[in-house]
């Protein structure tokens, strides 16, 4: 049931130009940045050769690409998630789900899985670029896998927050703007680190994403993302249920 809802969600994304546009635009930008990173790497290659423990191509080319991808998706995810629930509420098609023998949990998980599948396609697409380097050089595949996992977790977290905010309103634009605001805030919160901001840093998406991107997989970081996602999914289910009560 969850799968059916997820696949329909994914299909309808690709039936509109939205998904194609997002994939094309991000791919173009990332290809450009990937190209400049490679260019930069060639420029400093001779210096690197003299250094002991020099960073390799994975650190200097692949990880910056993922980092830029994360920032682009910070801006684009709200546009992908805004219509998930709000549009269905607006044009009444949510009734189909609500009058079918499916639980609210299944609806929410299905929608979440749909957007996560899209994110997976996106991550695989942009990972093609670093993987193409395998033809000419060796990559640290462990680091690459860590980077993909980090990006996937981050994008799932973005999506869960977007899904929740989409359930709060019937207006997709309102959902998009509030999602963007929330994500940006959670992203930046660690940047103005003073002395007493340890707790805030712990809340920040970036402070859990950055170490993983450097290849450091910490249980605490993974737990953070899983908690983040579950919290927003639970909030969404609660929200949908209470809307049924309040009308």
């Amino acid at each position, binding site marked *: 049931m969850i799968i059916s809802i997820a696949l329909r969600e994914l299909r309808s994304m690709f039936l509109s130009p939205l998904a194609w546009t997002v994939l094309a635009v991000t791919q173009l930008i990332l290809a450009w940045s990937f190209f400049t990173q490679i260019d930069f790497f060639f420029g400093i290659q001779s210096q690197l050769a003299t250094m002991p423990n020099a960073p390799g191509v994975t650190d200097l080319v692949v990880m910056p690409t993922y980092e830029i991808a994360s920032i682009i998706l910070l801006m684009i995810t709200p546009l992908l998630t805004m219509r998930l629930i709000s549009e269905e509420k607006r044009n009444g*098609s949510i009734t189909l789900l*609500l*009058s079918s*023998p499916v639980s609210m949990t299944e609806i929410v998980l299905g929608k979440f899985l749909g957007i996560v599948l899209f994110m997976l396609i996106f991550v695989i697409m942009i990972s093609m670029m670093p993987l193409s380097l395998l033809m000419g050089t060796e990559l640290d595949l462990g680091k690459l896998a860590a980077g993909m996992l980090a990006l996937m977790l981050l994008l799932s977290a973005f999506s869960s927050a977007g899904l929740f905010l989409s359930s709060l309103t019937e207006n997709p634009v309102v959902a998009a703007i509030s999602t963007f605001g929330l994500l940006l805030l959670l992203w930046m919160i660690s940047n103005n680190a003073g002395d007493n901001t340890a707790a805030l840093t712990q809340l920040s998406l970036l402070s859990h994403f950055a170490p993983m991107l450097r290849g450091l997989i910490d249980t605490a970081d993974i737990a953070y993302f899983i908690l983040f996602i579950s919290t927003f999914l639970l909030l969404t289910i609660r929200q949908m249920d209470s809307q*049924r*009560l*309040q009308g």
Partner: protein
Amino acid sequence: MSSQPLISVNNLVRYYGDYCAVDNISFELAAGDILGFLGPNGAGKSTTMQMLSGNLAPSEGEIHINGVDLLDKPGAAKAALGYLPEVPPLYKEMSVDEYLRYCARLRRIKKADTKDAMALAKQRCGLTDAGKRLIGNLSKGFQQRVGIAQAILHSPQVIILDEPTVGLDPIQIREIRELITELGKSHGIILSTHILPEVESVCNRVQIINEGSLVYASDMKGLLEQQNTGSYEISLHRPPSIDDIRAANFVGQVEQLDTNHFIVNISTTADELASMAVNNNWGLTRLVPHEHSLEQIFINLTLGDGGNA
């Protein structure tokens, strides 16, 4: 089919904030019933239907569908339910076939049975040739049919239709009414509409809701009996004097509209009036109920004490 009612509603109450939209409604629906649900705008029809279909939670009261409590076991209860809301719940970017296949998944129809269920629903709603078309490109009437197809796809025991004939052309309306009558033989149907003749031609029970309360509930037979001893408009080619009509002992008040037309109140059935007209060679050309009694009842009940229609 068991003898237990398909739907039983007990003391259903729904508040929107302080505003009471549905106030203590109870009714039952048996298999083979087609229940016409009437009421002016804002009376609580749609709210009631949304509660029956599980889209809104009631503030108080119980709903049992096919003997299953809708609030305790929504999954099992909703499996016996098909619902067409006022706005058909369609995904405009999908084709009719894709959409119905998705609905079949949601209703947990087995994969092996999906094709047959889709073919039957499409055939019943006249969509057989429209399977490949995008829902967004269909006309309003066809979209409405897709909405109905979606509601009957899993042949649920209970079908709830909120204004199913809106936006359809007269031929389609007739087809849909025939479909409803046919479905009504084996299913229980609740039909909400503003079109009173529709209720009279299709339903065997009628309920009127006003300002959140049920103000009238009757089966169609009862309504017809009321009709038989009411007021009639009679047109006579060779009219007698008004006193000649009054002379009969079953005739009450008589009002003359013009030379050929009278309104006659009688205490028995209409055929006595007809035979009187024929026996006296008055040249009977027309004999109709003076006012549609359902319409009269509706207006009396909903407009009676300053209600807004």
